[in-house]
């Protein structure tokens, strides 16, 4: 489940998961408040891209032609 970055300080960030706020390591990817992020074992691994819906539509259209 992705979380939302609330604040960033150095290599740490506060991330909100449906109301649960946790500190996470933010050294592996640049984040800013408001970003949706993927967190694994207390470490932010990636920022979720906003254009996912468009990408998936393209992929599904490609599959229809296979």
């Amino acid at each position, binding site marked *: 489940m992705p979380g939302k970055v609330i604040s960033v300080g150095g290599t740490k960030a506060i991330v909100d998961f449906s109301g649960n706020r946790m500190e996470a390591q933010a050294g592996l*990817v640049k984040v800013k408040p408001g970003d949706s992020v993927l967190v694994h074992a207390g470490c932010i691994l990636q920022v979720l891209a906003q254009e996912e819906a468009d990408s998936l539509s393209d*992929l599904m259209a490609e599959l229809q032609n296979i």
Partner: protein
Amino acid sequence: MTDYRTFLGEYDGKPMRIMEVCGTHTAAISHCGIPSLLSPKIELISGPGCPVCVTVTEYIDRLVALSLESNTVVATFGDMIRVPGTSKSLQDARADGAKFRMVYSPLDLIKLAREETDKTFVFAAVGFETTIAVYASLLDELIAQGIRNVKLLTSLKTMPLVIDWVCRSKSGIDGFLAPGHVSVITGSDLFAPIAKEHTIPFAVAGFEGEQILVALYALVKLINAHEGRVMNMYPSVVTAEGNKTAQKLIAKYFESSDAAWRGMGVIPRSGMKLRAEYEAYDAGSENLYSDRGHNAQCRCAKVITGAEKPSACPLFGSVCTPQTPQGACMVSSEGSCHSYFANRRR
């Protein structure tokens, strides 16, 4: 857009076996009831992607021994506490004085190590590329803060060569649901050489039910078209090249090594170990290769490689349950046996 759910439910082409490599996918597939949505011609097989399940007993024995040493505390994710070694688990060893702590993140050790400087904390560092990145972050912090009372007992695995092993083992797998979170770190291109060499498709998938179904739809299409390539069906977080910062940090602290896998033996260069210059942080991880479960009838080894389903094991659901696990696959919530038992899959 094609109704992929109808397509998967009514599929009547050639029978196919699709392996979900990642333990989190195994759990999500069961939790979402995905097998009940698929045509009987599409069979899902769980693969060797549950890190606890593929860890050999000699590693567990070493962990137990460390937990009994004076001033040493083992720290671990929760699953590892109940995994049986040759004779006992960490939990069993508590009566003998074993000292261990369950943590949410390896990074929790920084606070523990600062507060309890008279103890050495040993983290049970198992996992794949995703978690190796977290261990690299931990080492970065430990060194930056000058903390010396934390060590890692490593049993680190990497994905490509074990999937190659499955392809070469004549397991009859037609396509792979590729691990989403490993791919976040490595990039989806990691699987392209294997896909090409074995002419077998990979679809990188997220962990929501719909994301898994979409990836299965892609696989069924690609298998029928005989296309050995990778499709990234988890584009919100996975890129072709992966997280370069994480890859560099992993390469700074770890190097490729042979690794022992339950059920498969030692696969050359299928794991990672600490680089020699950081051996001060190693808790004695070399040569932990032996694997002898305490119940000879346990079929974990065959379940992990996809050779048998959990329900084929004579211990499944009788002697072996989540309360009385005989092998690692019944301990971890990502383990195939646990997942089959908890969700009444057959």
